[in-house]
């Protein structure tokens, strides 16, 4: 898959999470949804679920668009330091 396509998918994941966080229409459920585990109202339990979604979203992003760098690319960082000694 082309990187631009992968980056677009990442952008869609971010947009989805942003819309979910700003889903004001769900606020009507705050006093209607039963308490989760007897102590978490919807305004709280929603973000417990959101946290799990964030975990999944980051897994997807890592799988889609976070490649490991080639080893040779990262070799010159210490040079600057050693030259100064």
């Amino acid at each position, binding site marked *: 898959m082309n990187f631009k396509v992968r980056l677009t998918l990442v952008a869609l994941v971010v947009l989805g999470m942003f819309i979910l*966080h700003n889903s004001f229409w769900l606020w009507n459920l705050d*006093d209607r949804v039963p308490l989760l585990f007897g102590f978490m109202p919807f305004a709280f339990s929603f973000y417990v679920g959101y*946290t799990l979604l964030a975990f999944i979203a980051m*897994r997807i992003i890592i799988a889609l668009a*976070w490649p490991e760098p080639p080893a040779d*690319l990262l070799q010159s*960082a210490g040079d600057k330091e050693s030259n100064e000694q």
Partner: protein
Amino acid sequence: MISTLGIVVIALYFFVLIGIGIYGARVSLKTREDYFLAGRGLGSIAVFMALFASNITAFTIIGHAGFAYEVGYGAYGYVIGWSIFITPFTFYLVGYRSWLLGKRYGYATQPQVFGGIFNSKLVALLFLVFLLYYTLPYLVVSIIGGSLAFSTITDGMVPYWISSLIIICISLVYTIPAGLRGTVWTDIFQGTLFMVVAILLLAAVAHSLGGFTEITERIVRQNPAMLQRGLSEKIAPINWFSFSFVNSIAVIVFPQMFTRVLAARQSFNLKRVSLYYPLAMAAIFGVSTLLGVWGSAAVPGLTGKDADNIVPLLIHQFLSPVWMILGLMVILAVVKSSIDSQLLSFTHLVTDDLLPRFKRISSAQAVFWGRILLVVFAAAAYYIALVRPAAILSIAAFAFSGFSVMLPVMIGALYWPRANKYGACAALVFPAVMLHLWYLGILPGWTTFGFMPVFPAFVLAIITLVVVSYLTAPPSAEQREKTFGIFERVFDYEDKEGEEKIQPKSS
């Protein structure tokens, strides 16, 4: 009052920190990279705890609980909701690419990374000036908040000026000898401590209030408004939306956070941090939210700043004195873990990006100057925390917003090859000026269209970067290649290297 046992426990806690400082100094090399970046060798747990602990301040336990006391369960989503996802995402979006450039070119700070990308000393200088300008008030406010909390929880036995002095001195004891390594090791210790104690504290408060279900049902009966986000003006949708642009996206711009990302040993470490960071942030803010909301039923009637004392009050009224000692340690841990990192970052910026403009200094000299400056800046911060000048505190009120509006330039630099130094300079200065005009009341409130000023300023930063970059000469091909050549290799833009990737390393 703190018992003898309490004093012994706290003394032990301090000795552990001092021991970490001494040991850290013994294993540290006297090089700039080792002192300020721990030799770019931090593993997953170290980076995770360093980022987590540095980002937890007195606000998390004290201020946020007070906010939840006032607005209810909605405080959770308002303050930390978007951060749960977007903060770790920025570790990928900005952090990973900056880390790649840091590894490749030896960059250690934002002025170096973004000055390097744009090949511009002015861009580097603007980053330096703005980061120092916003970090100092943030540091002072952290000291003030922590010292007030320390003083409150000891019933005034330790006055404010001594609390500040203790917090700063203990932070210096391990930061001066061991640099970033010392702060990270103490972050691991302190981060673990306050996470464990905070969860135990929640369980103990719940137990003393009749259990999780009992206290929640009491809130449902007595004050059902605490459950409904739509009933609180403070978290009205327009504020909720605007706040998405305040603390959550600012985190990667904080110099202490950015530096810690650059200090990761491998890309793999950053990935793990990005995955688990949401869980830790959600947990600690969840504890703070529940304590605040429960406090509204258990200790009703607090208003304004008094509500910020709800956690110490819960401990005082419902738990044994042993919890007071643990609570005090949590306060100290959260305060110091952020103050030490801010102090070190401030010093790092001055040592690495300001001093070399006047005098060439060797790596060993940089460490020497770093240690001297740590003491100087700590003394200055202490003095400002005692005097509390209005000008500094008014800047602190929008320091987070100031950090946030720098993000578009950072993203533009890392993703848009057409972005140039003129666009970057304009996009750093113009939104910052507008923020000041809005926050200092020079421009009328209606000019933000009802949003918090940070949102229009953020949009202005994007527009300015794009417009000015298009109106001026593009960066040279050589300059673009220096940055985007690296990214093209890593991110495989054209998907051409598939065959190469599946070849075994040994071949």
